[in-house]
């Protein structure tokens, strides 16, 4: 049987019956008893200097940005005059976009709850230690993420545009109850969009980590797509416009 132990175990054996040891005087800073060479440095002062550089850099960027770009302040709040469009803050605008396509219970409650539960449960589902500390864990992981991102970046805008052009709500207004047209069908569509890449991945015999890479990438790219759609492409009446063709001089960036 070939020896599987790492080469460092041969150089620094942990358990031997020898009564002598190969000892050499080394140039170094600290006693490393029972350990092989490590590639560490003292946090002081390297980490602290690193943090000070970041502190100065971040503050400088915020400083300069605040000098040139003023925070918006519109007219005083008036419950009688609705702004058009009325948009949520940008980090919730993805949910507002989702609300355009399905029942509020699904878009506003069920999907966000599932997303948060997915995030919380994630480390308990994918609990293998392998692949930690490396971007995308492996070259294959990187390819899975790239392909999933490409897939989502095509499918999700297509879904938004398609549903915007042929709204399920309008098409099935007289032929199906609301919970089917606005609840069941959109939920099925979203489910199918998520399952297709998993089925493709299944042929590669994926690890749990690779399944998670796929699901998280769909979630992330979808969130970006829905946020951009709601933020940039929705104008008065929350209708779709190209960002540079907004009517009434509406500028999405005024609402930041």
């Amino acid at each position, binding site marked *: 049987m070939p020896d599987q132990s*790492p080469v460092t175990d041969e*150089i620094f054996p*942990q358990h031997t019956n020898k009564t002598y040891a190969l000892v050499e005087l080394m140039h170094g*800073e*600290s006693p490393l008893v*029972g*350990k*092989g*060479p*490590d*590639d560490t*440095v*003292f*946090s*002081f*002062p*390297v*980490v*602290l200097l*690193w943090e000070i550089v970041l*502190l100065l850099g*971040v*503050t400088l960027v*915020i400083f300069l940005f*605040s000098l040139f*770009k*003023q*925070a*918006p*302040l519109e007219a*005083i*709040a008036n*419950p009688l005059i*609705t*702004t058009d469009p*009325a*948009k*949520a*803050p940008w*980090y*919730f605008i993805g949910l507002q976009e989702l609300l355009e396509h399905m029942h*509020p*219970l699904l878009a*506003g409650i069920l999907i966000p709850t599932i997303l*948060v539960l997915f*995030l919380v449960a*994630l*480390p*308990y589902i*994918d609990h*293998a*230690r392998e*692949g*930690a*500390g*490396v971007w*995308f*864990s492996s070259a294959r992981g990187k390819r899975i993420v790239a392909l999933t991102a490409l897939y989502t970046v095509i499918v999700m805008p297509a879904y938004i545009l398609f549903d915007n052009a042929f709204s399920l709500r309008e098409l099935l207004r007289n032929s199906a109850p609301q919970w089917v047209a606005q609840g069941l069908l959109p939920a099925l569509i979203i489910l199918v969009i998520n399952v297709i890449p998993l089925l493709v991945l299944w042929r590669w015999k994926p690890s749990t*980590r690779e399944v998670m890479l796929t699901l998280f990438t769909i979630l*992330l790219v979808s969130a970006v797509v829905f946020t951009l759609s709601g933020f940039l492409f929705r104008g008065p009446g929350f209708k779709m416009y190209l960002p540079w063709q907004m009517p009434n001089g509406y500028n999405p960036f005024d609402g930041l």
Partner: protein
Amino acid sequence: MTVQSKSRLSFLTESRVWRSFFRHGWPDNPLDRSLTMTSNVFFHLHPVKVSRKSLRWSYSFGLGVISAILFAVLVITGVILMFYYVPSIERAYPAMKEIQLSVPLGEFTRNMHRWSAHAMVLVVILHMVRVFYTGAYKPPREFNWVVGVSLLLMTLGASFTGYLLPWDQLSYWAITVGTNIAGYAPVAGPAMREMLLGGADVGQNALIRFYTLHIAVVPLIMIVAISIHLWRVRKDGGLAANDVAASNRAANPKAK
């Protein structure tokens, strides 16, 4: 040894006053560098030694540190703004105008607060994306990932509650749209919305609730959660990149 024979530096570091502040000597040797990190309440959230790999910019992009810096900027600028802001629907908007027009550097302070808030939401999301794709949620870091997810939600909460405070059309309608989403939840939805707003509509009760959450409740919980989050990074073995460095060097069967 007389005082004159000592260098000026050791005269300082061995003085009664210095020793009452710092329980270690000048950090130019391994022992004092270790003690600097372990005996200082701020530094002790850091590990004493870090692997070179985890310091690499392209590994972490410093996103966690940047989030913490932005949080600090927000606390400082937020406290300055509190000196002028009044959480009343009659006086909030005039106070905003006053900050904008007559308070020295008032508009600049508000700009910094607003742009840092947007930046923090973005950076915290990017930090989560980085941690996910580097597999840094894997054991033993599961719990810290969960703390991180709750910090993301609290960051959104802090930003959302702050959004109402200017009491202009933008903030009023964004909060109306945002809280309407919460109202869609079955059974508890309308009650939840009413608890958040202190009434059926966004009014004085909502403003004082959002203000209290924004300046006291959420930031205090966040300070505790951030402390746990940072401390756990050290307790769980530093950045996950350390694990890779650790598995590459000699495995010590006694250490975990």
